[in-house]
């Protein structure tokens, strides 16, 4: 038999012995902490109120706006982020580490601060705000503002995921393709991209999800039109917990259904 068959013997399962009781307890605490609030909120909702909320045009509008603004942000992130991810995965250049940290910065910056920072570029009195203003695009209190806020805070997830995907593609596949006569463009579209589309798709889904849930940066740029997270906050502030709950539950249900659907779809494609 070949050598590799001998090496890849299944690893023996490690015995956890006395470790599993304390670790099991600690793990149980965090699982409960994560599951309890969401489950309690979702299952504690009054179904008739939920139905009324689902028919409320303001709620439907907000959820629709959220989904669709996040989708536009994700599409933009994909167009501009995937090339960057490929460059970061394939090139070595001075300052690359700094650039990578910069890309991840929106993840660690407080999102309200990110919103304020965006205003300094896209606000009415600032460079891009004025430039885009001339062609009639406003970033304050507009859908465009929601999109750039979502784009800013969520694109790192897509770039990182795509970068990981490109890194997993063996460079020698690309080299072999070049030697067979493929141009760099043909290599990218026929080898690299098809081999990591799953990572890129996962990145897109993560970015979309992150965009949908964004509150801090969005509310700084755009209070009206209201996205679902802003609407939940507004109902909580003005009408109280019991009015915020059904909107929150509805948003959670819609996103969960969409993401489970996508996962199932992805998993099927993977198995095929």
């Amino acid at each position, binding site marked *: *038999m*070949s*050598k*590799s068959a001998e090496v890849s013997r299944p690893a023996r399962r490690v015995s956890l012995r006395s470790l599993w009781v304390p670790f099991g307890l600690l793990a149980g605490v965090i699982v409960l902490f994560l599951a309890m609030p969401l489950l309690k909120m979702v299952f504690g909702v009054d179904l008739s109120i939920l139905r009324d909320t689902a028919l409320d045009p303001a709620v439907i509008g907000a959820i629709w706006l959220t989904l669709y603004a996040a989708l536009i942000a994700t599409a933009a992130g994909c167009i501009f982020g995937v090339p960057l991810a490929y460059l970061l995965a394939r090139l070595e250049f001075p300052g690359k580490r700094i650039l990578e940290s910069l890309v991840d910065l929106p993840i660690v910056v407080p999102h309200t601060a990110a919103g304020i920072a965006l205003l300094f570029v896209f606000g009415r009195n600032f460079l891009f705000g004025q430039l885009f203003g001339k062609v009639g695009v406003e970033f304050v209190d507009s859908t465009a503002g929601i999109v750039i806020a979502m784009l800013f805070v969520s694109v790192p997830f897509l770039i990182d995921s795509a970068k990981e995907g490109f890194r997993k593609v*063996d460079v*020698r*596949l690309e*080299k*072999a*393709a*070049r*030697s*067979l*006569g*493929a*141009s760099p463009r*043909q290599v990218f579209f*026929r*080898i690299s991209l*098809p*081999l990591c589309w799953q990572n890129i798709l996962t990145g897109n889904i993560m970015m979309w999800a992150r965009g949908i849930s964004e509150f801090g940066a969005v509310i700084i740029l755009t209070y009206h039109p209201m996205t679902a997270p802003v609407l939940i906050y507004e109902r909580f502030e003005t009408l109280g917990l019991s009015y915020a709950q059904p909107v929150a539950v509805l948003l959670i249900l819609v996103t969960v259904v969409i993401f489970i659907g996508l996962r199932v779809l992805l998993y099927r494609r993977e198995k095929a």
Partner: protein
Amino acid sequence: MTLTLDRVHIEVGDFAVRDIGLTVNDGEYFVLLGPTGSGKTVLLETIAGLHRVKSGTITLGGREITSTPPEGRGISIVYQDYALFPHLTVAGNVAFGLSCGGRTKSEISEAMDWVVALFGIGLLLHRKPATLSGGERQKVALARALATKPAVILLDEPLSALDPETRESLQQELRGLHAMLKTTTIHVTHSFEEAIALGDRVGVLGQGRLHQVGTPTEIFSRPNSEFVARFTMAKNIFHGVVSKRHGNMVFAGDGIAFNVVAQEEGPCCAVVRPEVVSISAQPESLEGTNYISGTVADVIDKGPVCSIILEVPARLDCLVPRASMENLRPEPGETLLACFKASAIHLLREELR
């Protein structure tokens, strides 16, 4: 096509390959031999155009291709693990190169038919690489590389990942294939046996330099440096001086002395290949033969042959066929005679090192 490298200097990261001058003739099977880390793969990838040279020129069939991108060279590379595209079927892999250029559909299918018949891979066409055996993968990789009828094909350790039996049969196949197609081939390996079995000529690469280029016989019996001698398994290498004594040229050094065939005196390195040394119980005092008595330090069974290490007091490695071992039955501590002809000793002038 003839491939020529002229004073090629490559730097990749902090690794460098220096001053490579090499001509691989049209239709030749050339083997680049070198240990791990000697720069074989870097040199191969440079020929394919995947690394930029720092200086020097590369010409192919009279055309300079030093700065031609890989896709414009017509040089296909086959990697050790074959680098088949995992998302494409065998058909997709083999047709890949064909579909990259501006070929018409009928040209592509004609080339496909030819290469599929050549390798007998018709039944594999709809399979994915992950489902193929090692031998099948190699066939597909070669088919993919040859489908575009490249000017030169580069093989990076194509046999290293296989078990010995498969390796031998694929070695035969590579020979047969080359005899038929006469595609200029550069084959990289760290296995001296592979180099001897396949190469029209062999180049020995070490520490980023090309040490010697020649036929396998030349490399084997007349290494030009201690590095090449060691790499070709000439275990017994002694440093010393050749001087005239009682009318004979005698080499002495490293605790051993013997007659040699030499024109000049002076410091040098003596290479005594272990297979030229035979073992006997009593001297027969033949003309031109050295007899050196030593103590058996170790006996290493290698299957078809055995290695007997004699302390003379220098360690002398002797390769003895299994048949002779039956008569000798050497035991550690026993005293035996090593004999080898003076003409079988290869001398390396010290300053060449």
